[in-house]
Structures are given as C-alpha cells and as structure tokens.
C-alpha cells in the first residue's frame, strides 16, 4: 500500500497532498425483545485524497481504489477552483510509524455465535427481571479499522484502531407510562471488556422499573451535583466545543471572546483534552493529519489556557498543533475534534458537596448533550432530589441547560476522584457522527442551573 500511496502522491501538483485509505471489518448483532433482530457483518474499503492549493481545499473520496492517480488529479482540480489566497499549515516533523493493536481477546477471532450468546444472556436477564419489563434492546458492535496514511511531506503511518461495545436498554411499561434504563460499555479494546456485564443488565432493568414510579423533575433553577459520567459530558458539551479552533480561527468576534488568559470559570475549574489515555475511545497515537496527540489544558485554574487545533487552524492562529484533526471515516476530511475530555479533580468529598444544599438535584449518568457554543443542554439518565442536605426521591426527565460563560463561573465545588466510565456513544459535528470520544471527571457542584420540566 505504501508504494501505491507514495506513487499517487507524486502525481500531485498541489502545495500539500495527503491520502488516507481505510479498511474496516465489522460485525453486529441486536436483540429486540425475545428475538434476535439482526445479525451480520460488513467489509469496507475506501479512501480520501486531500489537497491544498492557495489556501483552498480539494477532497476526493472513493471506494474504487483501482486508480489513485485519478482521485489525486480530481482533488487537485477542486482545490485550484477554491484557492485564491495563501496556504498555511503548521510545521510538523514528518514521521514514519506503524501501530499494531494488541488485544487481550481479539474480537476478530471470536465467532459470531459467541458474540450472539454473550448478549443473549444479558437480554434474558433484562427480560426476566420484572413483570413490568415490556421489552429490551441489546446490541453488540465491533469494528477493526486499519488506516494507511501518507502525505507529501514524507509522513507515512499505518494504524490499527479496534472498537468494541455493548449497549443494554430495558423498557418498562405501566399503561401509557413507558420508561427506559440504559447502560453501555465500549472501548478501543478486546472482547473481554464486554464480557461479565450481568450486573449492568440488572442495573438497566432495575432503573427502567424504578423510573415508572418516579415523577418528572419540576422545572426551575437548582443547585446541581453531577456525577462523574455526567461531568465528562458537561466538559465536552458545555465547554469543549468552544475550544475547537475551527470555530475561532477566522472569527474575529470569537477570538475576542476566547482570548487565552481570560477568566472563564471559577478557580477550581480545570478542563483537559488528552488523546493519550490508554484504552479510552478517543485515544490514538496520531490524529488524521499524522500529528501526535497530546495532553492539552483547555482551562487551568479557571483561566482559558489552550485550545484544540488542526494544522491549518494552528498556523492561522500562530499556535502549536495539538493533534486534534480527526475524521470519522474515509468519506470525510479531518476537522477539529476532541479526543478524551475531562474535568480534573478538586478536593471536595461528596458529603461536603451535599450537606448544605437545602433544595437541589443530584443528576446521574448521561443520555446525551448538544451545544450551540454559548448555550448547551445535556440530559441525565435519572436524578435524585436533594432535600435538606440528604438524597431524597428519584426523579426522571432530567435535562440541564445553561449558558457556558455563566455556568463555568457557577461551579463552586469539585470532587476529589476522577473516573473515566467506559461508556459507548460518540460526538457529532459537521455531519460526522458518531466519532468515538472519551469522557471523564469527578462529581461537580454547580449553582443556579436551569433544569427543564413542567
């Protein structure tokens, strides 16, 4: 493959050219209720050429690899149509590297029937948990991605990117009241991480049943404590996207809003994006421009400390590249993305956080989140009211919303233990979803959070 890529690269008359080829083998199986809903596998082979001429980009994506030179030519023509300015890419040292995935239990050697029987057991646990369980969705997915990357500056990387996950969803019903309990485990790891999840299946089923009798949370402003699984999503949604430089580098107003050194949160707020944490879903040695990933402080002691870059945004802002140009697949060009984002630990214990809260909300686990830069929402799987310093009743339909600039200032306590829950899920941006990302954090207390509800 290296020869083919390098030969095609030589045909380019652009200022910069890169070729990324990917082959993906994946398999999946899903139960819906008692029965297996589908089972199958797929094989994908495709590539993308990316060229830069006078600041303009040309892309060509393809499944037909028989003539790479034609794709290079096509991308060059597109770039020439676009380019009217000056090309800028941050300097990086060319590397030649080969990364081999080592999996404790390689899922490629596990038969489809074994994959099926592992989730069949979880499915049975959910369905037999209680009479109120109406149905279930239990799914298994794996993919093994091999990436060949070469660019016109001499970088050549072969990378293997495994991903495996199980999702467990229980649906409980009483009349018109339908509630769901959800658990998931995923990682860039071997089959062993999705074995032995019987307790998670029970937890999903129990939650679905418990939520049937939980009232929806009453809307209003509360002191909210978020648990580690949720604080990671908070770091990602409420702030992480703002630190993606493609939203900033050609936007003068945004540059003023996001000047490094500006106070953006209270003293105890530290938010980090790190593409190097072993086993997490956002971890890779190199990004999709062949730039090494690293640990990037976004907020340090409440002060805006850094941001995430591609080579283009780094050059245009006069900052260092950070290894955050990621693409979901060969059908897409890399754009600035997070890797594993977390809030760093503080020094509060959970007891400290809760004891002086008269009326508040303890929000637990994530369902999802979305941002429009300034405003964000994220949803907890469930929550408990806090009354007079104690955990009180279970509540459902917990959606938190806020304005990032205010909310980070309203963080007044940060827990003393960081966790990285191995949950599935991913991030969407610019039509590229779901990109595997990691989340983490401690418990965090925030004052005056708007909670949706009736």
């Amino acid at each position: 493959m290296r020869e083919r890529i390098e030969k095609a690269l030589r045909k380019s008359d652009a200022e910069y050219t890169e070729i990324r080829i990917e082959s993906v083998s994946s398999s999946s199986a899903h139960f819906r209720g008692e029965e297996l809903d589908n089972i199958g596998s797929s094989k994908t082979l495709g590539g993308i050429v990316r060229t830069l001429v006078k600041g303009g980009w040309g892309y060509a994506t393809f499944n037909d690899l028989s003539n790479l030179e034609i794709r290079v030519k096509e991308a060059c023509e597109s770039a020439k149509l676009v380019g009217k300015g000056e090309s800028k890419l941050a300097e990086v040292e060319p590397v030649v590297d080969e990364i081999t995935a080592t999996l404790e239990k390689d899922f490629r050697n596990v038969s489809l029937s074994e994959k099926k029987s592992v989730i069949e057991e979880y499915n049975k646990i959910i369905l037999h948990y209680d009479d109120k369980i109406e149905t279930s969705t239990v799914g298994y997915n794996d993919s093994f991605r091999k990436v060949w990357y070469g660019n016109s500056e001499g970088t050549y990387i072969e990378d293997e990117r495994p991903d495996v996950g199980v999702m467990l969803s229980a649906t409980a019903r009483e009349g018109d009241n339908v509630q769901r309990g959800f658990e998931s485990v995923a990682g860039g790891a071997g089959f062993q991480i999705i074995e032995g999840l019987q307790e998670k299946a029970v937890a999903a089923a129990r939650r679905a049943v418990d939520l049937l009798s939980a009232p929806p949370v009453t809307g209003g402003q509360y002191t909210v404590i978020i648990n580690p699984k949720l604080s990671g999503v908070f770091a990602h949604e409420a702030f992480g996207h703002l630190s993606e430089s493609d939203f900033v580098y050609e936007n003068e107003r945004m540059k003023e809003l996001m000047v490094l050194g500006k106070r953006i949160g209270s003293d105890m707020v530290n938010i980090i994006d790190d593409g190097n944490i072993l086993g997490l879903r956002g971890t890779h040695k190199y990004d999709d421009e062949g730039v090494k990933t690293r640990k990037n402080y976004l907020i340090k002691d409440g002060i805006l400390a850094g941001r995430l870059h591609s080579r283009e945004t780094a050059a245009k802002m006069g900052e260092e590249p950070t290894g955050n140009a990621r693409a979901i697949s060969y059908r897409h060009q890399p754009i600035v993305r997070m890797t594993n984002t977390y809030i760093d630990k503080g020094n509060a214990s959970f007891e400290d956080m809760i004891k002086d809260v008269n009326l508040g909300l303890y929000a637990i686990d994530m369902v999802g989140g979305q941002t429009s830069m300034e405003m964000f929402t994220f949803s907890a799987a469930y929550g408990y009211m806090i009354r007079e310093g104690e955990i009180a009743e279970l509540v459902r339909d917990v959606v938190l919303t806020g304005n990032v600039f205010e909310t980070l200032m309203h963080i007044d306590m940060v827990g003393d233990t960081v966790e990285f829950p191995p949950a599935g899920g991913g991030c969407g941006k610019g039509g590229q979803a779901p990109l595997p990302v990691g989340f983490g954090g401690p418990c965090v207390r925030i004052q005056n959070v708007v909670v949706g509800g009736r």
Partner: protein
Amino acid sequence: MIVQRLIEKAMKKAQGAQASLGQSESTNVSFENDKLKSVKSSQSTGMSVKVILDGNVGSSQTTEIDDVDGVVARALEAAAFGSPAHFEFPGPQEAPDVAVYDDAVLPVTKEEMVGIGEEMMGLVKEYNTDILLNARVGKSVSGGEFANSAGTEFSAETTSFSVGVGGQWIRGTDILWAGHGFGWKKREVDHVTIAKKTVKLFKMAENLAPIDSGVMPVIFSPEGMNVLLLALQLGFDGKNVFLGSSPLAGKLGEKIADERFFIADNPLIDYAGSSGRRDGEGIPHQVTPLIEGGVIENFLYDLDTAGRAGAKSTGNGVGCHPTNLVIKEGETPYEEMVKNTKEGLLVHDVLGLGQGNPISGEFSVNVQLGYKIHNGEIVGRVKDVMLAGNTYEALKNISAIGDKAEWAGGSLLTPPIQIAKLSVVAK
C-alpha cells in the same frame, strides 16, 4: 447484473435471498467563514446480501463489488444462527410511478455551484455584514439494482440537489445562529428564497426579548414541528408497536389527537427527499395514513415486523421508519395565529431533542432559535429558555393549524401548528 450473480450464488445453499447494489457520485461545495473553503467529490459503491437459511436470516455488506463470493459466504455464516424469518421474499409486483430523477442535476458544474453559494451569501451580507456566514451546495446522482429469489428485479436511478446558507452573529457574549436550507431530488431549488428566509430569521432575532416562566401558547414553525414529530416517528414504528415500547401499542382506531390533525407517510410525492417507487425490500411504496381526524389509522411496517405482528408491509423496509411525513393544512393563516396570541412563543429550532425518553412523548429542550410573541406581534428572540411537554398531550391541545404547508427539509411537509399550553422555563 451483479445482483443476479449474488442471488445465484446464495441460492446454492439458501432457501431465499435478496441482493442490492448501489453506486453514487456526488459533489459538494462548502463555504466557511464568509469564503469558499472546499470542493469535494465522492464516488461510492456498496452491495448487500440477505439470505434465509433453514428459517433464519443473515446479512452482509461490502464496498468491494468484486467480492461476490465473500459477501455471500458471510451472509450464510450469519444466517446459520441468525434471527428467525417471519416473511418470504416478495414476488414481482407493479409499483406506482413517482419522479425521482432529474436530468438537470448531472450537468451542473462545480463553478455553477460556487456561484449559487456566493449569491446566497451576498444576499445575507446585504442585510448585515456582521454575520459570519457558511453555505453549502450539493448534488448527487445514484443508481441501484435490486433482485430477490422470488423473481423481483428492478433498477432505479435518483438524483438530489441541495443548498443552504446560515451564519453566526456575535454581539458581546451573545452568539446567535440561524440558517435555512432545502434539498430534494430535483435541480430546481430557489436559492434566492432560501437566502431571504435566512435573512428573515435573523431580522426577527435582532432584539432580545425577555420572557417569564409559565404556561403559554406555543407556535411550532414547520422546522420546529420536529419537536412534536420525533415521538410520532418512534411511536408509529411497527416494531416498537409490536414490542410494546410504543405508547400507541393497542390503540389502533383510538382518538389520540385533535380532530383537525391528519398525518400520513407519503413516499409518492415527486422529487421529495424520501420518495421512490419501492422500499429497500422491493415492496411497492404506498401512501399510509397514520392519524386521520385525530384517530390512529395505521402503523408502519417492514416485511419481517409485519410477519411478526400479523400485519402487511406498508413499504417502510427495512426498519419501519417513515419516508416523507405530510401533515394536512388547517384553516388559520399563520399571521392570524400570531395576531391572536397575547403572550406566547414561536419555536423554530431547539437543542437537545431526543436526549431523554423520546418514545414516551416527553420532551424537554432548549429553545435554540425561538421568538417571543407579545400582544399579537413577534417582538424578538428568546434566550436561555427551556420548553417542556409531551407530544401526546400537546396533540390533544392544538389551538390552531396553519392554512399553508411548507417543506422543512426535504422529507417533512407541514403547516405551522399552535399548541394552546406548554410549559416554558426561563432564567
């Protein structure tokens, strides 16, 4: 045809087989931060095989069209312990005509597409140079072949064309996003009207209008209707109905909405985003009324789910998902709806839809682009506002339905609808 070879190969072991092949070429022009950023051309191929072996189903996909042997072998492997089949592959059937291919799409050049984008951005800039713009123009031409072991065999070609323009307007720490776009299977898209709609959305948002928390009437614009429709898409999914996770299970023939409310699944509208003569299982498309006069008429089924539920496929395979949703027009002009509102909200776009427990009908979303109505007039944009409610309660509580339906995206045709009372939480 390759699909024939796949079927022949599969039928050496299987008792039934289905194969499809798809190929497409597309071009996308993208503007970012006020300027042309990239031009992308994409070529793609893919084929898939589904087999029934000893009563069980297995499937496999690949992008490598030379790998006929491999893809069939993997489908057979999966079927060996696959899901039980509740259907047989359908024989040849006449399918209704619907236009999904436009000769005018293929000849559109990259330069023309750049020109369309530039013109749209120019129109928005004319209104306000402070808005930082993005725009996109895309086209594609696709072809497909389909065959099954029961003798159904066809090929289909489709085109698509889409444009959009939007932007970001920052004042202090206030970040406002607005934009509009449209795409369907025809070249004819009025990009000037689309740019003007974007301008209108920004104009209405020039002022920030504080709003008090409370229960108030809420108008959903055609785009905003997605807030209410998500629950229906999940609720009318025949698989969710069969498994009992839909709150509509067992309610066929029951009245669940205002009697003026009619919604249908319609894949037979010429050039609409999800139109076509047949579904992914070769079943002829049809118009399926879902709610008529507030009463549940049908659910959506694919072959396998229909077999399990003792129903008939509605041509919504695979997956029981809707195609184009069409909501019937009512009698109230939009202007009148606004004029009759003393204190209320107009919702155009939200953040966080589908995060909670959407199948139950519950929603709790941040109003990303919404406007305050005061004494019958739109007085400005609202901010830091959550809207919460339940689709099924809301549909019983409709106060007005607009007299003109509009496309929101390429697959939803709906008038604006006003709900008499919804809960709004403001900061």
